């Protein structure tokens, strides 16, 4: 489209390539004869042909795209739209919060913001569900033209409805959304559809996408299909099936795991180590299958590799085996397992994986590695990485109360900011008050206060403190040397407060 396509042009070009000193300018019937000769004549003709071709450019024909169905939802207000622009420009850490509020408001984003949001969701799968909701049908339509955005089509929306047509003849994305919609209203019917279709689903990624629907309204009757999925060819499918089965402690699968574990627990091994889990046999295919583990190769395994199988067994087996075997509660089990470090860690993992509040409380209350220990200066413990998962099964007021009790009123715990991030939102007013009290306290003399800790504390409060608690914060920065971090905290809270009002 960008060069003259006239009969003469090719001859002009070939003459120019050879050079007018070696080849005469051709006589061209469709161009006027020029008075000059040589290079000047050739350049004149080239200019003439170029301008002629540009001026004579003719239209193409193309197939118009099929327009999308109108989205009946109202758009977010102008203030919220401008705020999203500001967030997309340089406050992307607040994007998830904006998106979740917008998704809850039942409004859609301004259409022009859709490409930017899709681009971000393409890079960050954690945003996908909320982005799919706010971009709506226009976003799905748009993503149909760009493969990197294809994930949107398969994201279930609360407004989706089931139809036989979509399930029987739809695209993989449409089938997935139909199944999710049915699962929300009639879990049993959705399970029957999936069970019937399961053997014919040939693509692993699609099977996984469909199986994810069972997470909605998961119940004991789903165990059969999930158990079958443990034999799937796809490792991702097997992993998902195991994760879902872990939420069904009364399934046949769970009882088999209890059986394996009982076989491997040794009590009263030594007085110093009253309980331990022995290594599993790497050739036990039934056990490997039930834990979605790949059979190890032929080479000999290190101690860590062998323990890995036992660890997976401990984390996925319902924890009631332990209370039964040892005839004590979670606190007692942890006390007995304490000397066996790997086992203790695996039990803490199990509490997180199974989201069992009684067990995570027991881990958090542990005198030597619980929450009170973690906030102490110099404490280094794997539990800190797990803190979020340990707190997650507890009601939010309890989470806040536990952290509040642990930090007490004494010395400033190091990494308090990090611990507060694990609490999750929304903080209780009491927790906010305590954090503000620490922010407002003057710096400790002799430079003992850790400036990095103070800044992390500001950042944690900026992101997690309910913005309506802004009134607790004094307007003047309490520490001159940390003024910037403090003012940024106030600014972020004001920003979030405005954001909540707008949505």
């Amino acid at each position, binding site marked *: 489209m960008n060069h003259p396509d006239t009969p003469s042009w090719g001859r002009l070009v070939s003459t120019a390539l050879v050079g007018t000193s070696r080849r005469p300018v051709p006589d061209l019937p469709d161009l006027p004869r020029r008075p000059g000769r040589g290079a000047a004549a050739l350049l004149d003709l080239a200019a003439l042909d170029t301008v002629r071709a540009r001026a004579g450019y003719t239209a193409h024909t193309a197939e118009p795209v099929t327009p999308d169905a109108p989205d009946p939802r109202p758009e977010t207000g102008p203030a919220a739209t401008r705020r999203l622009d500001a967030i997309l420009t340089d406050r992307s850490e607040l994007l998830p919060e904006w998106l979740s509020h917008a998704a809850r408001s039942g409004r859609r984003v301004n259409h022009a*913001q859709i490409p930017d949001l899709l681009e971000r969701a393409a890079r960050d799968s954690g945003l996908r569900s909320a982005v799919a909701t706010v971009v709506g049908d226009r976003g799905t339509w748009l993503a149909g033209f760009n493969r990197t955005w294809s994930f949107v089509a398969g994201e279930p929306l609360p407004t989706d409805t089931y139809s036989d047509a979509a399930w029987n003849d739809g695209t993989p994305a449409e089938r997935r959304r139909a199944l999710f919609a049915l699962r929300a209203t009639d879990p049993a019917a959705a399970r029957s559809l999936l069970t019937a279709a399961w053997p014919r689903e040939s693509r692993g990624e699609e099977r996984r996408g469909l199986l994810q629907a069972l997470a909605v309204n998961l119940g004991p009757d789903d165990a059969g299909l999930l158990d079958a999925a443990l034999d799937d060819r796809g490792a991702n499918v097997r992993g998902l099936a195991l994760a879902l089965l872990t939420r069904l402690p009364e399934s046949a699968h769970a009882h088999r795991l209890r059986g394996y574990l009982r076989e491997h627990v040794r009590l009263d091994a030594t007085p110093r180590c009253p309980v331990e889990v022995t290594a599993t046999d790497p050739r036990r295919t039934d056990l490997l299958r039930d834990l979605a583990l790949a059979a190890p190769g032929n080479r000999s395994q290190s101690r860590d590799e062998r323990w890995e199988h036992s660890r997976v067994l401990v984390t996925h087996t319902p924890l009631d085996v332990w209370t039964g075997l040892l005839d004590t509660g979670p606190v007692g089990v942890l006390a007995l397992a304490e000397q066996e470090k790997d086992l203790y860690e695996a039990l803490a993992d199990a509490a997180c994986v199974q989201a069992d509040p009684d067990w995570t409380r027991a881990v958090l209350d542990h005198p030597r590695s619980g929450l009170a220990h973690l906030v102490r200066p110099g404490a280094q413990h794997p539990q800190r990485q797990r803190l979020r998962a340990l707190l997650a099964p507890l009601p939010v007021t309890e989470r806040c109360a536990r952290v509040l009790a642990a930090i007490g009123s004494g010395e400033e715990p190091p990494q308090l900011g990090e611990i507060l991030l694990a609490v999750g939102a929304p903080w209780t007013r009491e927790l906010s008050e305590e954090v503000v009290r620490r922010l407002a306290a003057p710096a400790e003399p002799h430079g003992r206060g850790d400036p990095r800790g103070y800044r992390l504390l500001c950042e944690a409060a900026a992101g997690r403190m309910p913005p309506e608690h802004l009134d607790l914060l004094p307007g003047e920065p309490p520490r001159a040397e940390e003024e910037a971090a403090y003012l940024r905290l106030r600014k972020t809270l004001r920003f979030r407060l405005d954001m909540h009002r707008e949505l």
Partner: protein
Amino acid sequence: MVLPRVIRVSDRWSTDEVWDLAPDPSSRKAALKVAGAGSWPRSGVVPADGGGLAVWGECEGSGAKPYLAAAHLDGEKAPAYKCSCPSRKIPCKHVLALLALWSRGAVADRRDRPEWVAAWLSARHARQERAVNGTPAAPVDPERAAATLRARERAVTAGLEELRLWLRDQVDGGLAGAPELGYDHWDRMAKRLVDAKAGGAASLVTQLPQNGGDRWPDRLLERLGLLHLLVEGYLAEDGTDARFRAVVRSRAGISTRTEEVLASGERVRDTWRVLGSREGLTPDGMRSRRTWLHGSATGRWALSLTYARPAQAPDSPFRCGTETDGELAFHPDGRRAVRVGRTPERPASPPPGGTVDQALDSYAAALAQDPWLEAWPVVLENAVPARADGWHLADPTGASLPMETGELWRLLAATGGRPATVAAEWSPVTGLAPMTVWDADGKALAL
């Protein structure tokens, strides 16, 4: 006649009028972040010395001292701004945020004012008094100016004569070896032209070896031919009309200063619609913004060009999707124009547009005025995104033009594939580049 906007203390602007002042979209976004009342512990609206009113405020920022921002809104003149922040944007985000707060009624009228506000206002007032009573700056000696111009024209003529020989040498010797030539082969000639003050021709020379791909012989011969045409046109001296002569001079690099354009350029009064703008890079790395305007009554096209250093955004003297009643002063080429005074802008309905064939006709007519034209504004009505070998924009007759895909996704997202009015720049070389789309409610979206 432009009606001065009479401002009383009670006369607040609308928030949209405030955002109109933003030099670019990023300023507005930045301003939004400080446009909460909490950022402004102290602020007020006071009458200004010499008329109008002043809005002032102290913005709590990240630094130890607050930023002191103020705006003087004086009905007949353009607003004046002051801020203690280091930003080079005018107005900066603090002033914008302050005015946005004021437009929402969140800045109180008061009588007292801090020392720094009083000092600034009284200094401004004194300067204005001097300007009214004193004599204007002496005009440049017309004879000297004419002599300077003649000297420049002689230099350009000499440079272009050398270029003519060089161009012919290239074609005489044959272009087959061109891809092997190093950049200095082209840069040497470009530098000679810069020395000869023919900057326009120089940048055309630097573009000669650019991205041809497989078709490099075609692209190179096209560019050589057009450059030769420019040389011939410039050196022809007579036989061309004054407008064409001005086009040739400006393409060669003889520019006219804005003050001169304002003083003696052709003035055209109309309701000017701002069709849209595109940013680009000049060959020497400056950022440029081309904004296209169209006169509703005269049908005249006008191009506003602004430049900035790489790290800064070029000024946007006009806001996309608005219209303004007033005068533009045109450069001698009859295309490039500058605004005369500050005329109020208002949101405009979608501009009248046409079909693809009409757009191509208007491009061809423009090419007759300026064969070196690179991009030309077109407005397509009821245009829909369409697909052939790539993405196109099609009109209701089914005719289409290939699109440059830079802003494709925003255009698709905004229209949903439904017919819309689209203002775009057309180039047969790079395709159709949408600048503005008007949505179903007639609201303009800058792409």
